[in-house]
């Protein structure tokens, strides 16, 4: 067993576990007992692989971005998760979990969503499999993300506004957990990131690990070597875990995760959990989260709705603590400039989330032969309004 992966008790070092009320225990326990069995079943794997290939469009390309490479004096490869069906890496996980839910005999699917990408990916697989779908979304986010709300509704999902607390992602997560408490038998909760009680962080990481298993092979095929750097953005952290997963044991590979500093780490409007957070319990796992001294969760801020989460997944907390991954902070401004730069140099409009990882390139010094793999986790179509307003196009 890898020292960076979850142990049999559901922990990564001291992080993880399942801090859940008794009402959720049977659901989570059923999942814990079944998820590896189901995922290792050849029929499951065949169906998962087939959908990944024919429906999602995998493998996603590993693209050598030549003009970007020229700028940074190194080889920058983009792992093109933005080319997946629905436009981001989120679909890798929802395909996996819908197949798992079917095998558990569940009839109804619930999910939380912030910007709506995970909600859309969940509504998509529910339409694909004909399962009822309810997506919880903060009332404020519903207003901010109208196109994604429309996509979910068109696919037959019910979008429920979370009116509690700050009415954003963390409250949508609370509402989804409350729904699950009230519907313990027939419902499966598709969590969208590597957060939540064990086994969710491990399960989601395994579904997303397809990103790094492909990328590692793709670079080997092109260059016959491992990359020097692997980079990704982190909100809850699912694309980053997916991008790092198969490189964790390759200690020569430097892993870098970009968090959202918002308007600046000390501005009071930030989501830089690794800097501002403290150990605690959030949404069922022990991790690092932004909180007041008496343990109340602080509402994060980022221009990117997908990074706007007050915690990071427990595996990230562990990788931060043992320094296997370097966590850096990127402001709104840095991310927006990096998004525009990629658009102008490569003709690719990135999601603002992914632009945080791109912005880190500006801050690093590379050797000429360095190979960098950067996870382009999603496309920027959903962010056009944001970009237009920011740059006054």
């Amino acid at each position, binding site marked *: 067993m890898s020292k960076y992966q979850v142990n049999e008790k559901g922990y990564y070092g001291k992080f993880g576990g399942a*801090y*859940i009320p*008794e009402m959720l225990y*049977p659901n989570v326990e059923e999942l814990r007992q079944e998820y590896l069995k189901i995922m290792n079943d050849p029929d499951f794997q065949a169906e998962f692989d087939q959908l990944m290939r024919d429906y999602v469009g995998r493998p996603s390309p590993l693209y050598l971005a030549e003009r970007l490479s020229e700028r940074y004096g190194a080889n920058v490869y983009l792992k093109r998760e933005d080319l997946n069906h629905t436009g981001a890496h989120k679909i890798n996980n929802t395909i996996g979990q819908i197949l798992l839910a079917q095998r558990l005999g569940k009839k109804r699917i619930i999910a939380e969503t912030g910007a709506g990408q995970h909600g859309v990916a969940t509504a998509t697989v529910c339409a694909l499999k004909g399962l009822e779908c309810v997506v919880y979304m903060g009332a404020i986010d519903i207003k901010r993300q109208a196109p994604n709300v429309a996509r979910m509704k068109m696919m037959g999902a019910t979008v429920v506004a979370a009116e509690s607390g700050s009415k954003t992602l963390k409250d949508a997560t*609370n509402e989804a957990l409350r729904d699950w408490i009230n519907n313990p038998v027939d419902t499966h909760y598709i969590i969208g990131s590597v957060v939540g009680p064990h086994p969710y962080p491990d399960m989601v990481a395994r579904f997303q690990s397809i990103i790094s298993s492909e990328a590692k092979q793709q670079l080997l095929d092109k260059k016959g070597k491992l990359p020097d750097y692997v980079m990704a953005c982190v909100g809850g952290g699912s694309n980053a875990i997916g991008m790092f997963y198969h490189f964790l044991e390759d200690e020569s590979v430097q892993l870098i995760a970009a968090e959202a500093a918002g308007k600046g780490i000390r501005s009071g409007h930030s989501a830089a959990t690794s800097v501002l957070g403290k150990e605690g*319990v959030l949404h069922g796992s022990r991790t690092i989260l932004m909180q007041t001294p008496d*343990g*109340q969760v602080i509402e994060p801020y980022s221009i990117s709705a997908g990074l706007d989460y007050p915690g990071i997944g427990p595996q990230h907390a562990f990788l931060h603590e043992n320094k296997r991954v370097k966590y850096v902070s990127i402001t709104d401004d840095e991310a927006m400039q990096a998004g525009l730069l990629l658009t102008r140099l490569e003709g690719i409009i990135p999601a603002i989330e992914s632009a945080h990882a791109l912005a880190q390139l500006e801050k690093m010094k590379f050797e000429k032969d360095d190979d960098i793999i950067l996870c382009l986790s999603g496309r920027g179509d959903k962010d056009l309004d944001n970009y237009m307003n920011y740059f006054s196009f």
Partner: protein
Amino acid sequence: MNRLAQLFNNKKDKNILSIYFTAGYPHLNNTLDIAEGLEKAGADFLEIGFPYSDPLADGPVIQHSSQVALQNGMTLEVLFEQLKELRKRVSIPVYLMGYFNTVYQYGVERFCKSCAEVGVDGAIIPDLPMYEYEELYEDIFKSNGISNVFLVSPQTTDDRVRKIDSLSTDFIYLLSSSATTGKDLKVSDERLSYFQRIKALNLNNRIVIGFGISNHDNFKQAAGAADAAIIGSAFVRQLESDDYLQRIPEFIRSIKEG
């Protein structure tokens, strides 16, 4: 003998009522006024909630009270300061109820010591799982004489109920159904058979039913099926009106006598 055991020894009728309210709601400094009012009105024991920003086992009423309490400035520090006078004004058993992160930040050992100092009998922490409690915290609770109360839901298996029973010291909090707080309880055959299933296990601890109890009828049914019943949201709703302290006696009477 602890306060809860004494209560059950002294009271032979099947009419034991516990009331939950959120500390700091509707006003920061009324915690002991409400507790004292409840004892005088005939409540048999109390759960005092300490607020958390993300109370995921709670419905809208207790969410709202928690949010207001936090805005009012309630924290565990403030609460324990207020509770220094607890045993001068209140003699019935008192349990604190809230979520683990707030306890964790306060310090679990410090929390137990503070409870013991002010005369709180135990804690109900819905998201502190049995495994963690047993591995990390049981010794701390026990050495401070603080009871940790676990929840049991209709989906909890018999084996797990027995395990919970072995770790409990005062009572087991039997959830009337798998639901968040504040839903209206309808007593059905299915529910009665669940209560009977738990009773048939002959547990060492008292069984107290909570969640969804809001009126005389479902109080009588729940208290009759177990050792006592807890009312939370229905009482917290009373606190919305300005004359809430005056309303307490009538509320308790309406629950107990109908």
